């Protein structure tokens, strides 16, 4: 099988999700793993992709591609897929990945599955597992077309480093900046903060924190652990915290290695968004809180009494490690 992976870069750097996608591809490829890198990236960083299993990198580095653009990028990925006769196109399901994946599929007349959390089963046909009902269930989906697009969920696949090198080849899809009707005006990224969608550790809090003025306790623990902060729906509805921190069925679905829920009861809609987390800690004063049924570790009591103790222990742990 020929596999093409779209390696999204952020200001010339590849994120963990790219290495996951290449490792994913490397495990299912009996042929070759090709990578499409779009925009300016240093040659050394491209060559490094070999150690995750890439055999060849197509580097589309035309000036007009330096900024992510859904229309142009999807055309470039489709171009790369055709150039290498890709059977499967693997795209990490980030916000930008979600923008390009369906457009690539439509251009190639390919069947597509998004939110993929398993390697494909090719024993009879081509089957993948995806997460559905916002994490409340899984579905096994068959794709019937000869070319397939898989948008894989970040933080779902391990990164494997192997003894392998790759070649880098300049490529050109022959497009122009004017081929895009959408234009990026400004990009603002919160510096120094770990984006929730990429975080391996998440400290989240709910109404139990009583008010936005108490969030320094949550943020302090998150800072020490190197975790992202999140919140429940009521908290974002009351504007205590930004909407972008709301996890749950109508917010963001996340699957970090550790999810600490402070003062969140664990309504079914909230659990849907976080239940795929590897380890869950629930802290709640109500012993009947549903979160304790979904958690691995629980502490029943007042968050204002418990949090300082955990933060203190985390500080000691970190200084010991340093």
């Amino acid at each position: 099988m020929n596999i093409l992976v779209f390696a999204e870069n952020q200001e010339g750097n590849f994120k963990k999700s790219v290495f996951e996608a290449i490792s994913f591809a490397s495990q299912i490829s009996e042929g070759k793993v090709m990578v499409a890198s779009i925009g300016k990236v240093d040659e050394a960083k491209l060559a490094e992709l070999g150690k995750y299993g890439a055999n060849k990198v197509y580097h589309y580095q035309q000036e007009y591609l330096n900024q992510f653009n859904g229309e142009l990028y999807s055309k470039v990925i489709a171009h790369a897929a055709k150039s290498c006769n890709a059977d499967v196109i693997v795209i990490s399901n980030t916000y930008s990945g979600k923008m390009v994946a369906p457009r690539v599929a439509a251009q190639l007349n390919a069947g597509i599955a998004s939110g993929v959390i398993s390697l494909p089963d090719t024993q009879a046909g081509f089957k993948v597992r995806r997460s559905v009902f916002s994490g409340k269930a899984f579905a096994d989906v068959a794709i019937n077309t000869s070319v397939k697009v898989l948008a894989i969920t970040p933080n779902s696949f391990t990164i494997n480093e192997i003894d392998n090198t790759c070649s880098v080849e300049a490529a050109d899809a022959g497009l122009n900046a004017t081929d895009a009707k959408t234009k990026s005006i400004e990009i603002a990224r919160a510096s120094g903060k770990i984006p929730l969608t990429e975080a391996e550790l998440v400290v989240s809090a709910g109404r139990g924190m009583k008010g936005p003025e108490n969030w320094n306790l949550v943020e302090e623990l998150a800072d020490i652990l190197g975790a992202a902060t999140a919140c429940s729906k009521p908290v974002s509805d009351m504007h205590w915290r930004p909407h972008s921190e709301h996890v749950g069925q109508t917010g963001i679905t996340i699957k970090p290695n550790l999810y600490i829920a402070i003062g969140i009861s664990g309504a079914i809609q909230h659990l849907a968004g976080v239940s795929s987390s590897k380890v869950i800690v629930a802290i709640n004063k109500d012993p009947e809180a549903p979160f304790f049924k979904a958690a691995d570790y629980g502490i029943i009591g007042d968050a204002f009494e418990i949090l300082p103790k955990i933060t203190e222990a985390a500080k000691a742990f970190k200084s010991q490690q340093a």
Partner: protein
Amino acid sequence: MKVLVCISNVPDTTTKVTFTENNTKFNTQGVQFIINPYDELALTKALELTEKSGGTVTAINVGLADAEPSIRKALAIGAHDAVRINAEPVDAFFVAAEIANYAKNENFDLILAGRESIDYNGGLVAGLLAEMLNMPSVNVITAIEVNGDTVSLERDIDGGREKLECKLPLVVSAQKELTEPRIPNMRGIMAARTKPLKVVEANTAQANSQTLSFELPAAKGACKMISVEEAGKLIELLHSEAKVI
């Protein structure tokens, strides 16, 4: 401005998900269906835009007759008319192809959908539809303004926000922050009964994927309780036992 909003009929967010027929079908027994919450935001935003600068809002659904209460609700919220393409929505490709087939001769200026449906979570229809109609698309938008034929948008990106500009026509998908959902009033509910809801037979779109079976996640083992006094021990357990820090 002629606006189309894609509506999906989904189980209420409080639904306890179970399956029937050997885990091949979602169990609809006792389940309340609603307009997909993100589609509802798309609809509300479409109404806000047309109330400001004029125009009409059409709600479209690919589904069987059982989706009609949700479509009527879209009319009650304020959509001017609605279309139901009479077919089982097999996969996103099928749904997008059916909507594209309807939309291609209707000259919509703006097409909105939710960022994803809360049942199948594909997040694919807007992008597929845009490509099929050869239109630009912007996903997970948190703000949109239309001035003449120029559209200013904001969308979520990983770790931040992007501001974009585009000319109509355009396809967008709604993220949570786009607006607040609108609750239909009595007048809207009364008016919805007589608003046009056209049923169109499905074209010949082919699904290219199919859901074979479902599985519920394995139940969690017992929760290990830690006393308040020993709360600090959590960190040690997360390090040496759970091995996540």
